[in-house]
């Protein structure tokens, strides 16, 4: 614990501290029974949607590639249950739109996994593959950033020419209230995560790694610190409980005191950040040849009967999780995919769990409603809490007035969409909604300008 008390770091600017509500921190990860039917969206990652390579009525095994990566920033999608492809159709997903998905119905016979996948629980420590092979395996396994951003991991591992990575940072911060998926994973699969970290270090050719963990998870800090005690180059960095500590740029600033330049990437300051969940997935892909077919999802809510952490097959309807956790409480106002700060309200519980679904949160009615928007009272609280040093009130007003050139000048593209501004606004102004709109418009204007 001495480690946790001394040497606690944080990012210097802004941030908020919402109620933590980590209801499921003590609940071990349970395996959720594979559903009878899954709908696997072909676009679960940032970048080009994968191209389906299976046809209707085709038999598939668990772990078989059903959609191929279409471009560099894209990744593979795998079957998550064995059975037959029922159809390829548009399905409502967590974006709130109906988008292409591959629907697989389970067969009557026992579950069948694709060849060459090691399903045992034995820890494989020796890394036999080389740098290129690891990156290839990560792509083949369809691994994306499991923290929620779903950026294809192989892209992050392919360091551009002329740049050199110095540090790997493993993100175990989990600063979103309610969510405990990464916390439980660190407690239960710590050994595997460390091996995963070593694999990532090998792929990036770095010899230093830092695991960042918020200090509200002392058991995880202790466990990881114990595991890394005789590990060369890997250390644990306890961090102050401050949202958005887990933001990539905030984490780099806190852990290494390096600042990612505006419009730049972490690699510009010699850092690559991966989530601990991603490290675990990389371990499974590289050492066990197991593609990303399941992930840990926290299902939680104040009025839930038994909030839990589940290991869920991707494509499972959210409803299955809700049922397994005791059903929807009567006064539920919103079902949110992700955490309460950055998550997105779902418009149906039939939406499938995707690679980026870190949690499902059921919020009671009284907390779900947005306050009525009032006028800006110029209190500048949003400016104080913005971890990127932006002026949210200004960006909102400029976007409303459609002055997009000024929105761009005021660095709207640096916004990390953490929602601290909307959270803190005493006038309940939808700051982030408008900033997102401004960001989107500015991005498309820039794209137009470059073409």
């Amino acid at each position, binding site marked *: 614990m001495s480690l946790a008390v001394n040497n606690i770091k944080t990012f210097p600017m802004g941030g908020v501290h919402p109620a933590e509500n980590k209801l499921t921190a003590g609940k071990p990860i349970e395996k959720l029974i594979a559903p009878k039917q899954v709908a696997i969206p072909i676009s679960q990652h940032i970048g080009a949607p994968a191209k389906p390579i299976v046809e209707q009525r085709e038999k598939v095994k668990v772990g078989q590639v059903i959609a191929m990566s279409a471009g560099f920033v894209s990744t593979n999608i795998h079957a998550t249950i064995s059975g037959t492809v029922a159809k390829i159709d548009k399905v409502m997903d967590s974006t709130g739109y*109906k988008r292409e998905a591959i629907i697989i119905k389970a067969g009557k016979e026992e579950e069948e996994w694709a060849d060459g996948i090691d399903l045992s629980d034995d820890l494989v420590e020796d890394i036999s593959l080389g740098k290129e092979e690891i990156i290839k395996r990560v792509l083949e396994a369809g691994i994306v950033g499991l923290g929620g951003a779903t950026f294809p991991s192989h892209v992050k591992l392919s360091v551009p020419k002329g740049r050199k990575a110095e540090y790997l940072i493993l993100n175990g911060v989990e600063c979103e209230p309610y969510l405990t998926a990464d916390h439980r994973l660190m407690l239960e699969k710590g050994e595997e995560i460390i091996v995963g970290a070593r694999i990532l270090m090998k792929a990036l050719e770095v010899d230093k790694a830092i695991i960042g963990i918020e200090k509200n998870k002392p058991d995880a800090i202790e466990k990881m610190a114990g595991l890394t005690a005789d590990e060369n180059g890997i250390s644990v960095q306890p961090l102050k409980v401050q949202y958005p500590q887990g933001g990539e740029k905030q984490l780099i600033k806190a852990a290494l005191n390096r600042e990612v330049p505006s419009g730049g990437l972490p690699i510009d300051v010699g850092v690559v950040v991966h989530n601990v969940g991603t490290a675990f997935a990389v371990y499974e892909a590289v050492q066990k040849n197991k593609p990303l077919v399941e992930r840990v999802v926290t299902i939680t809510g104040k009025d839930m009967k038994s909030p839990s952490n589940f290991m869920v097959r991707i494509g499972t309807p959210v409803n299955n999780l809700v049922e397994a956790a005791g059903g929807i409480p009567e006064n539920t106002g919103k079902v949110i995919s992700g955490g309460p700060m950055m998550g997105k309200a779902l*418009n*149906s519980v039939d939406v499938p769990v995707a690679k980026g679904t870190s949690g499902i949160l059921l919020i009671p009615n009284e907390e779900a409603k947005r306050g009525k928007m009032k006028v800006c009272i110029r209190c500048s609280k949003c400016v104080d809490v913005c971890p990127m040093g932006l002026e949210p009130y200004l960006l909102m007003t400029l976007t409303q007035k459609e002055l997009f050139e000024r929105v761009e000048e005021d660095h709207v593209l640096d916004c990390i969409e953490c929602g601290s501004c909307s959270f803190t606004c005493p006038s309940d102004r*939808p700051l982030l*909604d408008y900033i997102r*709109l401004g960001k989107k418009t500015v991005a498309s204007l820039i794209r137009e300008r470059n073409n």
Partner: protein
Amino acid sequence: MSQTILFTIGSITILGFLAAAILYFIASKFKVYEDPKIDEVEDALPNTNCGGCGHPGCRAFAEACVKAEDLSDLHCPVGGNETMQNVAGILGMEVDERDPYVAVVRCSGSFEYRQKVNMYDGTENCTVAHSLYGGDTGCQYGCLGFGECVDACDFEAMYMDEKTGLPVVIEDKCTACNACVTACPRDIMELRPKGRRNRRIFVSCINQDKGGAAKKACEVACTGCSKCEAECKYDAITVENYLAYIDADKCKNCRKCAPVCKSNSIHEINFPPRKERPEKPERVKKERPERKTKPVASGAESVTLEKEADVNVIEMVKKANENKPNNQNSEDKA
């Protein structure tokens, strides 16, 4: 008078003349020649600065007109043919007549046809809502109902109908400036030729879901059944992604397509009611039992109703149905 005052007056006068000389020199040296025709053309334009022509304002359009070698690419939708003739007259050029356009709303999913499936409590702004999710009804293509098109309209040619939750275009006021088309994040608004005698036919739906899914979300959604496509003799209708589209240039207003549309997605505007009615839509009959005798049948081609520009076929048939007992259809039968 003391000498100081005299001296002051003298020096300031000299300074004044000096400054005037410098200014005169600069003004004549750096004079920007501007074609006087630009001013003339600008005066001939409506000066609404709406941007409907694709230029930043009327002045810029006037400059473009004066600079252009022929006016075939330039058109002021607000002023229409008359204005363009005036402009051509000033510039001594020829200009072709263009068909006037009007904005149409390609969504008829009103509250009664399109059930709400969830609640939206975010910002009441179409673009924001559109960026967040598919909308509070099952149709992810349809109107969100926050009226950004209405806000964009500079001519008060649109309003939100509170009963249906959909925007309505007032035909007589619409100048086809394109503002609503660019404002709508869902591409629901479309500019279509006003058509001969102001009559036109279009598909009032942009739902690209498969038939079943579309129908489930909205009773009046185009299911892409292709019946209209088969019915059309002029190849004006194409069905793509489970959605029919009528090419206004090819459409001859023969009215064969609308009756075969089972979901009433095809709207006929400003047509007289049909004489033979293949089926009486029973849903419609219930709605408005009382109806004063306002013979729609006789002067129907000039139905440019102030408030109901988008009279759809259902209402047309309905009105005719209801008029029938009162009027005894004397004209129709004769």
